[in-house]
Every structure is written in C-alpha cells, then in structure tokens.
C-alpha cells in the first residue's frame, strides 16, 4: 500500500516536471512577456531594465533551471502583472472554483444516478425514453451555448437569477464562500447548472447501462428471491455493483470541471481559477500559468488516488496489486 502510494507520488512528480517544461517552451513560442509588460513609449534601456527585473533577459534554459531551483523551495515565482506570489494568487481563486465544481457535481450525481436508475429499471416506460433522449441533447449541446441560453432565459427574460459574480459571501476557515448565503446560492445556481448539464447526461447513461447489465444477474435475482424489499435490492445490491465506473467518472469529471471551468466562469463572470487562467494567458503571465497548472495536475493525481482508495471500499475483490500495476478490473 505504501509502496503503491510512493510510486503514484513519483509518477505525479514526473508529470509535473514534463508539464512545466511544456509550458516554458510553449509560452516562449507564443510571445515575449516583455512586450506586454513595458509601456509602448519605453526606450531600450527601460526595456532592458524591466526584462532584467523579471529575469527575462536570461536564456530560456537558465530561466527554467532557476524556476526549478525555486520550486523545490515551494516558490513558483511572482506574477509579472500583480507582482505577488503566483501560488497565492491561484489559491485565492480556488474556493470560488471549488464550490462551483462541487455543487455542479452534486447536482450531476444526484440527478444522474436517480434518473439513470429509473431509466435502467423501467426501460420501456415513456419517461425513460424521454430521459434517454434528453441525455443525448445534454451530451451534444456545447457548454458555452447552454450557458448563454441560461443567461438569456433565466436572467434576461425571466429575471429570476443573477447572471454574474459570486453574490454575498461568508468567511469560513479564512476564505470567502458563496454557498452559505442565500444570495450566494442564487448566484451559484446558473453556472452550476451549466456545468452540471453534461455530467448529468453522462452519469445517467452510465448508471442506466450498469443497471441494465446487473439487473438480470443471478445475485440480483437471488436477492429478490430472498424476499428483500425493492429499496434494498436497488439501493444496496444493484447500486453497489454499478458504483465503480460511476465513481471513476465522477472523480475524473470533478478534476476536469475544476481544470476547465474557464468557459463557464467567463460566461458568468465567476471569479474563479479558470478566469484567472484565461486572463494570465492573455498577458503571458508565466508564473501564474505554471502555478495554476501545477495545482491542477496535483489535484488530478489526488482525486485519482482517492478514487482508487474508494474502489477498495466498494469492491473487496480489488486488491492492492491490481491498483499498483494499473491493471484494473
């Protein structure tokens, strides 16, 4: 178990290393941050002074080595724009993204699993067919378009829900959160719904497929032949059996929601990490981009690790050896 976790951490380290290398090379090709940082009327001396101040006058490989050296001490550099440590900038924005993603995922899991169970248990029912047709729509509509439509519908036409910002926030554990206040929840509603739509469709299809598969298995029939209540047959015997793929997808979706919530955050002016990332790319603020990506990679690794641990709780047949070699079931 310990060896397995060490190996996972080592792999994560390699991924981070490769990613930083790519970001350095990629941004170097994309443009020179100095062009953006210096005022247009600055002379060559001023230009050189600013480049030197940010260490941008040195060759790229020197810049990279310097970055690595500082990174080992937990310093991912200072933002060119804000002149503050990049990591703390990212972490400041993390709670907003986190609460949005978690809420979206709760909506997705709640609706996805319950609708999927229904459609799987009663495949012939009219409602099931409607659910399945709706899921195709949910999977195929682009997120940005749905977001715009939600704004047009619920904010502009009906005026029910606000379309931008976080609303009132409440400080918990030293960070501001929107979800504990009613106004914050109203602000969360549209972006969370927008993020959840695709996932609802995904999870419900996955759930339905799982149910269709296990409902005819002997152990489900045996559970019924023992006279167990339907709630127990469905809630324990069927649900536990189909949970592994669903947990995997929820884990991956959680990561990708956090990593790629830029579109939704931009549409709803949600001050999360995604927006910070977009802004930083526009001004080639390399330290912030790197810090953001490091945070996201670490998040992916952690969530996958948690999902693997959860498998073990869900299915006793998954041994440590399976997980270590990556050979799933």
């Amino acid at each position: 178990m310990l060896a397995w976790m060490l190996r996972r951490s080592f792999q994560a380290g390699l991924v981070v290393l490769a990613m930083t290398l790519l970001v350095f090379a990629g941004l170097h090709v994309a443009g020179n941050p100095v062009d953006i940082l210096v005022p247009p009327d600055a002379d060559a001396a001023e230009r050189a002074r600013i480049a030197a101040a940010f260490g941008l006058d040195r060759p790229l490989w020197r810049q990279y080595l310097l970055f690595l050296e500082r990174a080992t001490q937990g310093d991912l550099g200072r933002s060119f724009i804000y002149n503050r440590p990049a990591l703390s900038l990212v972490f400041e924005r993390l709670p907003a993204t986190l609460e949005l993603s978690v809420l979206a995922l709760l909506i997705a899991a709640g609706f996805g699993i319950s609708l999927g169970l229904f459609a799987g248990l009663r495949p012939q029912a009219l409602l099931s067919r409607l659910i399945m047709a709706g899921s195709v729509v949910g999977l195929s509509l682009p997120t940005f378009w749905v977001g715009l439509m939600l704004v047009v519908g619920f904010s502009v036409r009906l005026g029910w829900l606000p379309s931008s910002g976080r609303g009132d926030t409440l400080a918990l554990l030293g960070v501001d959160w929107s979800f504990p206040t009613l106004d914050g929840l109203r602000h969360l509603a549209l972006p969370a719904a927008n993020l959840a739509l695709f996932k609802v469709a995904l999870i419900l299809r996955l759930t339905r497929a799982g149910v269709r598969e296990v409902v005819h298995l002997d152990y489900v029939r045996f559970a019924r032949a023992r006279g167990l209540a339907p709630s127990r047959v469905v809630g324990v015997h069927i649900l536990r059996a189909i949970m592994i793929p669903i947990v995997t997808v929820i884990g991956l979706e959680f990561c990708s929601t956090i990593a790629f919530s830029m579109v939704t955050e931009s549409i709803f002016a949600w001050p999360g990490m995604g927006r910070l990332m977009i802004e930083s790319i526009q001004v080639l603020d390399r330290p912030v981009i790197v810090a953001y990506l490091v945070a996201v990679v670490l998040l992916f690794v952690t969530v996958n690790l948690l999902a693997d641990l959860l498998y073990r709780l869900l299915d006793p047949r998954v041994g440590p050896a399976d997980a270590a070699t990556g050979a799933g079931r």
Partner: protein
Amino acid sequence: MSAPPSPAPSPLPPLLEVQALRAELATRGGPLNMLDDVSFTLGHGRVLALVGESGSGKSATAFSIMGLLDPPARVAGGSVRFAGRELVGLAEAEMRRLRGNRIAMIFQDPMMTLNPVLTIGAQIVETVLAHAPVGRAEARRRARDVLGRVGVPGPEERLACHPHQLSGGLRQRVAIAIALLHQPDLIIADEPTTALDATIQAQILREVRALVTERRTALLWITHDLSVAEQLADDIAVMYAGRIVERGPATALLRQPIHPYTAGLIASLPRGRRGSRLTPIPGLPPTLASRPSGCAFRPRCGVAGPACAADPPWRDRLAGSAPGGAVRCVNPGQAVAA
C-alpha cells in the same frame, strides 16, 4: 379407539398445486410459448425432480412459481396454488412476504448468486431481517447458527468473508443456509449441484435430503441429471419443450419409462457395464420459436406416427395401477418394447 389406517395420500390439500401453467415470451413477432400446460402437485415433505434438457422450461417453471419471471417473459395463464393460496396474480408485496420465507430458492451457480461486494454475514442478516422482526444481534446469531447447520466450518469467521474468499462448495452451502433460514415449506432448487464437482455434489445431496426430511420441507429439485433425480426424488416429472411429458414415482418411472423421450434420456445415461455404449437421442431440442405443433418430440422420436401431429392427451402410465403416474404420448409402451 384406534383410528383406521389412513391411505397413503394425506387428506390435506397438497402444498403446491400447479395447474395448466402457461408462460409467454413477448417478441417482435408475437408471443412465444415458454411453458404450455404445466401441471404437477407436490406434497409436504416430498421431493419432486423436474428433469429436462436446457431450454425445456425447468427454470421458467421455477421463476413462474416464485413470481420472478421478468419481462418480456410473463405468466400467461394457469394457476399456482401454494398452501391453498393462489400465487398467480398475487400482489407483489404479498408475494415478497412468501419469497425467502415460505418458499425459498437455491440457484445453479454459487459463484454468481451471492453479491460479490457484500459480506456473507450482511447477506444472511438482511434475509433474516426481511422476514423476522428481530434485532441485528439476534439476526447475526441466527446467521451463525444456520451456517453451522449446513456444515460450514468456523461460521463466525465466515460471516465476515466476502464470497470470493470461499470455495464454490462453501458458497453453495451458504446459499442453502440462506434458503433454510426461515424454515420454508418449499425449497425450489434450480440445478444447485451442477456447478460443483462430483464429491461435493454427492455430499450436498445427502445433506439436503437429511435437512429436508428433518423439517418436512417440500423440495422441487430442477436438474438435467437423471442420476441426481434418482438419488434424491420421490417423484419425477420430465419436461420437454415447455411441457411435462411424463410424471410418476421416481423408481417406477426410471425402471419403466413410457414416453420415448424419457426412455431416450435413460438410455443416454452411463450405467450398467463399463465400456458399454451410450445411446444419445438424435437431433437437438427445438428452439422456442421452432417448437412443432402436437407432440414437440415428434421430429426426434423413433416411433412417431401421423397421430403425433395432434396434441397428445394425458393417459395413465401403467394401465390399472393408480399411483403409477401419467404420460403424454399416443404410443405408450412402444418405446420400451424396442
């Protein structure tokens, strides 16, 4: 004053009375008959073996009795009376109260019948709690006791095991233990020893027989194996293509089969001298969609004639003797003479 000796059949109605049971499978091309006119009775403490090839409707009969036939299959007619109560059309909640309680079932493959992600203990305890108003501690005690009764060694430790940690034989014992939990009046066993190796099979047959005799539990034992039926059953019913074609007391039926299909099954058994040839039944059983009218065995039968194109009527197996059983064949007796 001494009571007059009562005749062999008890005056009580039989525990299970299946009458003209019919089951259909809905398909795009219209319903197909899975079961057609299946009738038999089973008394308290008796063992009836339902014998037939795969697809002959043995399991469909079992699931019809249990009310567990899933769409697109359904019971289309006939009656199943259990302890005087009609089960066909009974409300699901009522049916659930009987399942696992008064009528228990054991499945074929012990690798598949227990939920792989739940412990043995959890699965026994939930079955106790489904039918008995007891607390968790008492349910657990009963779980331990019943495992001990079916000869599972170290029951206490086994409760914490998951199914994959147990051998196939042990798993089937667990399934049998679950069936015995509420001391049912009837156990339906769907080929429960087929997936086990021969020594375990013999052992389990012996033990099941003892457990059933002890409590006067009736047993409907579904098997494709006539030799299992011979060891275990009081009566045998032979199924072919969704119908019972012959039924009667086990020893009489095996010694003197009347229906050509029964005779063919017996001839294909390895018995008698070593090295003697087995005689297979020619051809294959018909599929659900291609069952011939009249006697479905007709295309494979050595003595079939034009009369077999009509539905054969039931007649006594042996003329004159009442408890000799019945057969559904227009040429009774000819196959045996051959």
